[in-house]
């Protein structure tokens, strides 16, 4: 049943579906602590329940300009390789069961999206990209170099 549970959110100006088992929680953040000299997609650090999380700006990962963190903005907390990260979300829409199967991505995506999208899924008459949060943690190699 868990496999069918998705978080529908708007990240990097796009509606996407995230598999719920990849997600730890959704929380709001205050002002993050800036990390000087960090890669551009690192929006800062913030503490949650005695843990320090690294805030990721998906805009930068996709190739868009960075956006400032608004206090109270909601973030999607994920654990990747024993480290805690949070993806800045433009909006959190819903958590819902989607019975439709995940299908192969058809059509040409922007390179940034092509890297993070695993599949597509049909939900309430719209196609959504299914993205893997862990793909947002690292920048594309070419870009980081």
């Amino acid at each position: 049943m868990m496999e069918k549970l998705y978080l529908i959110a708007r990240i990097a100006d796009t509606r996407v579906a995230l598999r719920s088992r990849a997600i730890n929680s959704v929380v709001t953040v205050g002002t993050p602590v800036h990390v000087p000299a960090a890669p551009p997609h690192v929006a800062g650090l913030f503490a949650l329940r005695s843990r320090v999380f690294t805030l990721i700006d998906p805009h930068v990962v996709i190739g868009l300009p960075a956006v400032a963190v608004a206090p109270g903005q909601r973030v999607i907390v994920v654990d990747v390789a024993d480290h805690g990260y949070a993806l800045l979300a433009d909006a959190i829409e819903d958590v819902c069961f989607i019975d439709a199967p995940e299908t192969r991505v058809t059509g040409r995506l922007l390179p940034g999206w092509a890297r993070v999208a695993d599949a597509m899924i049909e939900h309430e008459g719209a196609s959504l990209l299914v993205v893997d949060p862990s793909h947002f943690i690292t920048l594309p190699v070419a870009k980081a170099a």
Partner: protein
Amino acid sequence: MDDLLNDFLAETAEILAEAGGALVAWEADPADRAQLDAIFRLVHTIKGSSGFLSLPRVTALSHAAEDALDQVRRGNRTPNATLVTAVLAIIDRLSSLCTALGSSGKEPQGDDGDVIGALAVVDESPAPKAAPVEPVAVPTDEEINAELQSWRSIRVPLPLLDSVMTGVTDIVLARNEFARLLRESGAEASVVASFDRLSDSIAGMRQSVSQMRMQRIDKLFSPLPRIVRDLAQDFGKKVRFSTSGGEVELDREMMENIRDPLIHIVRNAIDHGIEHLDERVAAGKGITASIEVSARQSGNQIEIMVRDDGRGLSPDALVAKAISARVIGAAEAKALTPREKLELIFRPGFSTAAKVTSISGRGVGMDIVKANLEKIGGVVELRNEEGRGLTIVLRVPMTLTIISGLMVRAAGQYFAIPRGSVREILLETSDSVRIDRLGGGELATVRSEQFPLLRLEQLLGCSVDDDEDQDDRAIILVRPGQGHSYALSVAAIHDHEELVIKPAAPMIMATGLYAGTTLPDNGRPVLLLDVQGLLAAAGVDASEAGRIDDASAEAAAEAAAARDAAQLLLFREATGRTRGVRLSVIERVEEVPASALFESAGVVKAQIGSDIFAVHAATFPTGPEAVKLLRLHDGQSVLCYPIAAVIDIVRLPDAVQPAQAPGLVAGVVLIGGEPVELIDPFWLMAQYGAGQPAPSLRQPLCRLSDDADGWAANFLAPILRSAGYRVVSGDETVEGERPDVQLCLVEEHVAPVAADVPLVRLRSSVAATGPDDDSIYRYDRGALLEALRTRVAGAGS
């Protein structure tokens, strides 16, 4: 049953390692009764435990060894090398039995007649009977058992210990967050009080848990004597081995990480470092070489030193070796400094031995030693004296997870710096710092020592926060490793805290600037700076070697000029008053949290680091969270003087209006047209100096007669008072006391109170009226005080 067996095995392994070391020490000094007793006790313990677990072979072996040792203790047998070797053989057999026990769970079949028989062989050759062990007061079994109880302890599986540690670390972090929430919510006093109690016990628990993980470094040293003995015998070398500092404690995890490097270094010392006997004789050294292993704690670091008196390293031989091993090219070799030549031994693929021996050539090179140490934040340092020996110093942090960190501010946010690498903290405006800009770079000269100056904002690629007070800018002298140091300029120093360090996300660690993250009480994550990484990022050569010592003629002249012109530090007190103090008496300006201040026996004290200093404050300072303290230093003791802010450093004007009486204020000077009170450090130190006020001696009473125009009262009396006299004038009297001395002006009418009170006469003119004029010019301070002193002393005798 399995648990019991595991405990037995763990304990026995420990005992055997210890017994091996003790035996070697005993062999070197058979008269050492304490060692013999210790070995006996250890063997006795194994016998006791094994009997309980019904391990007949172990029992028989330990019984035989115990028996032989007991004969020695009772004086029936002389200790010699044969006996020691036989006992060592038993210990080896016990070790192999234990290994078998550990893997199969039961004692293997076998015959130990050979090793037990070896014990019975009494060396018939005329043993040197020089030091027969006196058969005195052999402790009974009961006494030995009682002694055992004291070092009995519980064994805990390591993973459990680690999980307790992680748990406590999480509790500390949760407490910090809770403390912040509590502050923000403005909770009731009773809630805060009970939280504080909880907080205290958590702090106590954290301490105990850290201690649980600590082990005496003895444990690390215990297998070494045996290794040295066996190796020395293999090579036909004579080695005296000694250890010291075994009581130093180290985190268990760190211990694991330095065990192999340490053994490797000791092996190397015997194999490569120490010469063969004939070489030693040729070099004019004693036949017996010495290897010392010592440990000591310095701050948050442990220093382990392995010193040998062998041939040391030969830089040229190292280079030749490195070239032939294709570690470096010939061209590269030419450019090496002597130090770099030595450090060739840390290159992968390098081995100093002409041939790989069975002992040292075990695939572990010094490169692995270095890598292992660096993995845990340690450093390896070589101190080479070619032909006379080599000392290898390992420096490792005491614990991995909780460190003492200095919080600094830059670009409007906080960063932590490991306290262990901070050498000194100075204000940028301090008199002892000079900052030069040359060729785009900056250089800080602190007390004629030069450091490359790095600005933290620049390193991090941030702009300087304009809101920061430039006066607060501080310079931290950082020493990331031996032989390297630099000055780091930050916007302000905040305080220092015990910090729980967690690794940061890989992409943050990849910047090379940070060593981790931590969560202090305020709930805002703070990045721990990687002091070594900052240096690498700056691309500055921070090597201390070859720095121009600023003792050039120009600097010397400058220093001489500075000495002549005393400088004055102007500061604002909490009351808003501007005062000044000679800069030379100030050691540094310290900013401490208000919590570092406390009251003890009516005196305010400050805790700075691990020292407690007296603070000059009439009342307990309240208000801001951080208090700035001037640290006054007289070469022996330190006194802290709380201030609100440092204003400026100016030249001390020549004209000082002295104060009436000795006290806090020595006088008044005009700075920029404004009067500034000058603090008298002499008086201040006197107040706190010895920790107790000097006994008040009876101050002589001085009478000023006939002071019609008030000169004596207004001009003379303050001088007298400050010289330690009590003063009465005219017809005043002090009840029950006769004046010790009286003063009058020649021009005035003299009316002595009593003829037997010594009189000092003062005149208004500089010149004396005649040869028999014994009066003193009234402004001749020295002569006046001298006259008073002799008259008072004369009257007293």
